[in-house]
């Protein structure tokens, strides 16, 4: 197990290097730069700014300089916000996105699997059709539409919840619902499909013929197998959900990391974009690793280490 874990971690390094390299050069080849603005900067000021951020050196030198920095755990200073380092900003904002993302994913898992399993066990009934119609709705209504609808309805018209803002518990409700809706729907569909497949398997038939109750069959035997596809979806999805969503953050005025990512790209805040890309990549790879490890526990057919 430990060997497998180490191997996987080592395997991440070349992947990360490729991502860093591609992002670094793509970003630099985009027109404009962090210091271009409607009102032009004096040549002297621009020169000094470029010197400060080592942008006066050839691109390749800058690239290796950046790699060197990363090795020391430094993602550099933000080019937009004075005195702020990228690591500092990510630390501050990631905590917010993590909380919202975690809650949204928790709700999505809970509701998604329940709805999906419920629909599968009542296949082709009214309940099944209703659940799946809502799932289609959940997938097809984007955050961009759902967020404002919720804000207008519960914030503006009913006055029950704040339309936007951050700081209190009530500020979490609408963004978490907005963020989770899509995932509830997707998970419900996956859960339904996998449950339908599992209950047709031979081992379930065996369990049935042994005279076990429906409840025991579902909870003890079917559920485990039906969870596998969900786990493999939730892994990478979690990485994206906790790194924030620019749409939800903007609609509800949440100081999360998703906004930094997109605004960084618009402002050509090179270091900020690199920092967030690295964060997302590491998270996606880590969650994939978790998924593979989780598989080993859930599915007895998969072994992560060689048998002695």
């Amino acid at each position, binding site marked *: 197990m430990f060997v497998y874990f180490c191997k996987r971690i080592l395997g991440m390094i070349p992947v990360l290097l490729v991502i860093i390299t591609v992002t670094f050069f793509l970003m630099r080849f*985009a*027109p*404009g*730069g962090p210091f*271009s*603005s*409607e*009102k*032009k900067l*004096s040549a*002297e*000021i621009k020169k*000094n*700014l470029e010197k*400060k951020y080592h942008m006066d050196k050839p691109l390749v030198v800058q690239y290796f300089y950046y790699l060197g920095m990363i090795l020391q755990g430094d993602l550099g200073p933000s080019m*937009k*916000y*004075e*005195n*702020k380092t990228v690591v500092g*900003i990510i630390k501050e*904002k990631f905590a917010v996105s993590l909380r919202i993302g975690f809650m949204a994913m928790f*709700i999505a898992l809970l509701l998604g699997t*329940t*709805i999906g399993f419920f629909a599968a066990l009542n296949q082709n009934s009214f309940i099944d059709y209703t*659940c799946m119609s*809502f799932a289609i*709705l*959940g997938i097809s209504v984007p955050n961009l539409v*759902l967020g*404002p*609808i*919720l804000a*207008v*309805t*519960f*914030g*503006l*018209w*009913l*006055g029950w919840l*704040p*339309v*936007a*803002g951050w700081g209190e518990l009530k500020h979490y409700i609408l963004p978490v*619902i907005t963020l*989770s*809706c899509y995932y*509830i729907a997707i998970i419900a569909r996956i859960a339904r499909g996998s449950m339908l497949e599992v209950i047709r398997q031979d081992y379930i038939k065996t369990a049935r013929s042994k005279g076990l109750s429906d409840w025991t069959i579902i909870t003890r035997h079917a559920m485990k197998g039906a969870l596998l596809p969900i786990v493999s979806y939730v892994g990478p999805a979690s990485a994206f959900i906790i790194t924030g969503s620019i749409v939800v953050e*903007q*609609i509800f*005025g*949440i*100081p*999360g990391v998703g*906004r*930094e990512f997109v605004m960084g790209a*618009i*402002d*050509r805040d090179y270091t900020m974009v690199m920092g967030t890309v690295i964060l997302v990549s590491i998270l996606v790879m880590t969650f994939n690793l978790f998924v593979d490890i989780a598989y080993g526990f859930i599915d007895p057919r998969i072994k992560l280490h060689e048998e002695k």
Partner: protein
Amino acid sequence: MKSIVILCLGLCLLLTGCPSGETKYPMPDDKGKMVLRVLNGAEAATLDPIKREGTPGTSMLSNIFEGLVRVNNKTGGYLPGVAERWEISEDGTTYTFFLRKDAKWSDGKPVTANDFLSTYRRAVDPITQSRNASLYFVIKNARAVLKNEKKTEELGVFVVDDYTLKIELESPTGYFMSLLSLVPFYATPKHVIDKHGNAWTELENIVSNGPFKVVLRRRNDRTEVVKNENYWGKDEVKLDKIIFFTTDNGETRLRMFRANAADYHVTGLASSAYPGIKNNPEWVMAPYLGIYYYIFNTKEAPFDNAKVRKAISMAIDREILAEVLSIGYIPAKFIVPPRTAGYKTAASLEENVEKAKQLLKEAGYGEGGKKFPTMTILYNTNENHQKVAIVVSDMLKRNLGIDVKIENAEWKTYLDRRRHGDYQVARAGWIGDYNDADSFLELMYSESENNDTFWKHKKYDELFLKSRKISTPEKRLAVMQEAEKIALDEMPIMPIYFYVADTLVKPYVKNFYPSNKKDVEQGFYDLQARAVFRDAYIDMEEKKKYFGVK
């Protein structure tokens, strides 16, 4: 499942209509304190006045720091700030300021002439990398200091004694007082900067001399400021606290304002605000120091020909354009916005389709000449810019038979293309840095860094430079008027409309200009739309009534 039910409920409500009435929003519990909530747009990159950028930074810093003079929002003149009084030499090149002795930093230390000296030196020092450094070029040797040709000590700012500051200018500058009222000329605390360097603006270090001081700064969420008890004019400051919300999304700002979560919405309303807004008493629209225009790339045919440029401008109906946008923009027939201090335009462009056709013919296009090549209008991606470009292209097609392609580009790409002349006609906008025609006429000066048209006109340049050296206002006005006339005659830039500054203000916010439509009618507003809340207060009784609290 629950959220889906909620979603359906929401959708049903959307279709069937909803309860109305003010009382459904709880009044924020401020424990009897007077708190003003401001929707302030995007996050300010820094709290250092000399490095301020954009409107959100300006509105926060105008309340946190104070300069030598303050602008009188009601009448437009200048009020004493840190300087109690001032003297201007006869030739208009030397200003002496006598500082008040009771001006203090929020840590209780006195504000002295040395603070201003070090601030101004820091502003032009190339090491500081201030993006506002060029505003200082009117001060003696400022440009040379920035270019590393002279030492910062040679800057024309002198401390006579702790409370007397002398500033020498390169030439008489009619708008120097306007410059001094700007945020980049406010005082910064020498003793704190000496200690903390660049980190002086961090929450744990920052010290300020304005009516308010910073107590909370949560990036991309909010900045909170409270009354500065060390401020010399603290008796006139009524508000206990101001919360500046960072809300870069216009629709979110609007929803927050409508849900009574904020009392003031800075200029920059989302387009969905406009239908029916004219009847909203909370909507306050005032003239603004800004112009929306198109620039021509005068380096390349066919726009190297002034006749072509003029023909294009003549074939456009600006009244219709302003109407299409329905925001209350003023059609622009000249370059310097109306009501700019000390200026009155003497020229006006003409709109005349027949004449436009004639001019185009004279330039060799149209009937009997060559076919006018397809032209492209470049704009940065934005709904309004797109509308304008579509209407303009339609007008040109209909009136002059010119085929127009419109092309949008993302902000930085658009800027890059403008700078490098990779465009034919491009959308542009300019907000005056200071309340003077100079800030607009500079756009066409051939040496200006902000002239992306590549237009170079000897007479224009001469007049522009001359205007900067004249101390008599009347003579200066005449020279500037002549320059504007040349620009309109040659049309390197094509004015379209003048911006307006519209804000949303709750009726219980008082003593702040402009806080309602009547203020605007009476001319009580700041052309630069700086939101200064120094004297503002909240009528608590009216606020309770507004929220339906008994």
